[in-house]
């Protein structure tokens, strides 16, 4: 495919930066309320799958709408492919949006919906049809090209909405919770399909979601948002494994969090007792460990001479198919949340009331901010 962004957008040849987005000091305050988006600085790299993750009302959609040009920031600068966007209206930006409601045009059929952007840019028919047909084949929606947009199933509409954005070969594709209206199975399929499409086309995707699982599956990098601010930006693995603060730790998954006071370079006093922590300790703070990083032993097979080993009793066991979630109450009354995979269900499963031992490996304990 050849690139053909709208003529107005090609003002200078920043080809190296094509698809890069740079936000600095972006602020948006809705009348009579607190800032929906509060001084956000963010760089999104060309060709990456970037996810804005956060609870509803955190400002992620507002941020996306400002990149698309539907809303103007009250302060700050937006650069798309190195170009200042302040005076560029939405219809002149080389970005395309996939809306949560899909917003397919009810008076047009699938083919015409997909070709709408090309038609508005004045691309005439042999060329337009060729490009529409190519994208429909790629998305496997050619079979219902002539069908009205109102006669499609949820998954089909999602594909058409994506095709309608991709056919324009935009520098950036913006996706506003595009999968949230679909059932779980279709959703999982489309996540993979979307990801495959993005890698194949090499376009920058900015994906907005409140679903941490979706964010983990799809993204190269994640920006976790809360109350109009970016809490943490980083590769998926970093954000999950090394969350910066309590909000990020809890939003991305279950976690055990305890306050600690250091008693040595690698030891700290916590409500559990004394813990050895591999990472260098930086004053007192919070210690976090993911439940799947906690090892559970039968009380008869407790390894000798291990650090961070605590005896306790299973209080709760929630079977979840591939794994089981346990709440284990330690001798001093503290609870520990732990996951165990059900790969040897018979030997390695515990019922409430059974005595066990848990081990928190020093490497897996992270220091986080409140």
């Amino acid at each position, binding site marked *: 495919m050849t690139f053909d962004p*709208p003529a107005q957008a090609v003002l200078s040849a920043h080809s190296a930066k094509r698809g890069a987005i740079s936000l600095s000091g972006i602020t948006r305050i809705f*009348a009579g309320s607190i800032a929906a988006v509060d001084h956000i600085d963010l760089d999104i790299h060309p060709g990456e799958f970037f996810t804005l993750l956060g609870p509803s009302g955190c400002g992620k959609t507002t941020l996306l709408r400002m990149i*698309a*040009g*539907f809303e103007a920031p009250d302060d700050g600068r937006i650069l798309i492919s190195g170009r200042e966007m302040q005076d560029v*209206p*939405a*219809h*002149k930006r080389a*970005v*395309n*949006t996939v*809306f*949560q*409601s*899909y*917003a*397919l*045009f*009810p*008076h047009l059929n699938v083919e015409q919906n997909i070709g*709408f*952007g090309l*038609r*508005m*840019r004045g691309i005439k028919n042999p060329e337009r049809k060729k490009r529409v047909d190519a994208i429909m084949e790629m998305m496997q929606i050619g079979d219902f090209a002539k069908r*009205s*947009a*109102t*006669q*499609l199933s*949820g998954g089909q*509409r999602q594909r058409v909405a994506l095709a*309608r954005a991709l056919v*324009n070969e935009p520098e950036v594709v913006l996706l506003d919770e595009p999968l949230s*209206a679909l059932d779980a199975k279709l959703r999982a399929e489309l996540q993979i399909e979307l990801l495959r499409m993005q890698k194949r086309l090499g376009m920058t995707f900015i994906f907005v979601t409140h679903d941490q699982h979706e964010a983990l599956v799809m993204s190269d990098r994640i920006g976790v948002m809360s109350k109009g601010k970016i809490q943490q930006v980083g590769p998926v693995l970093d954000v999950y494994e090394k969350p910066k603060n309590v909000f990020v730790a809890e939003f991305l998954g279950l976690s055990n969090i305890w306050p600690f006071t250091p008693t040595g370079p690698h030891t700290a006093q916590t409500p559990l007792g004394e813990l050895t922590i591999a990472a260098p300790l930086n004053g007192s703070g919070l210690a976090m460990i993911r439940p799947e990083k906690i090892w559970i032993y039968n009380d008869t097979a407790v390894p000798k001479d291990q650090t961070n080993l605590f005896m306790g009793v299973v209080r709760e066991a929630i079977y979840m198919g591939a794994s089981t979630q346990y709440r284990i109450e330690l001798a001093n009354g503290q609870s520990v949340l732990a996951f165990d995979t059900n790969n040897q269900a018979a030997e390695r499963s515990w019922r409430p009331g059974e005595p066990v031992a848990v081990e928190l490996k020093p490497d897996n304990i992270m220091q986080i901010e409140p």
Partner: protein
Amino acid sequence: MIPRGVRYALSGISWPVYVLLYTPLALVAYYSFSPAPNSTGHSLHAYNILLHDGAVGAALQRSLILAFGSAITSTVLGTLLGYGLCRFRNANAKGFLAHMPSLIIYTPIIMPSLVFGISELIFFNFVHNATGFLSAGLGTMVIAHITFQVPYVALTVFARLSGLDPYLFEASYDLYANGVKSFFYLIVPVVQPAIIGGFLLGITLSIDDFTISFFTSGPGSVTLPIYIYGAIARKGISPEINALGTLMIGTIIALALVHFFITRHRERAGQLAARGKIA
């Protein structure tokens, strides 16, 4: 479930109502076929006279000019008004302010046409005395008819647009359409049934209108309803008037049917669009 007895009673009542509604119309049609002078049996005599009556022809012509002139103009203005009220309404408005657009549109519709007609008369007189423009005639009638048709068109367009997914507008901007292109490639096609329906409604309202026409017409702008009124006042109800009435009934019924089918089509399309929305 309605008991069978009640159902029968209700359908029993409905027939006299239908008779009451349509008998007068049928009578007009019946008398229009009255016998020619010095002969017996039904005839098309009254229609023949009507056909060769220059005054009727001129009045019909004026009525049609008035109807089409005002309906076309008010369709354009009403569409723009409906679009503007929907598109640029304040999303944060609450209570009374949130209903402002609908109130602005509804008020002229519920205003008694007598009041409307007199106020138009006063207004045109005022403007005429002050500037010399707008002397009573077909021109002032067209303006008056536009003013009472615009709300109907605006209302149908407004209703259609406010039922749409608001993200459609943004989607069109996102896909490189500026405001003008978005209007012609998205808004107009989507509200087209409402526009056509509004136009036809405007024509029927205009042809039908007597009160407002009466107050705003001038000496040289006698339209059909005014002609009929004058003819009855002079010499009572003649077979020619009945023939004229029959022709008007036929035309209005035809237009109403066209309007009905278009509205039904629009509703069906609207239902499909609604089904297309996410839950």
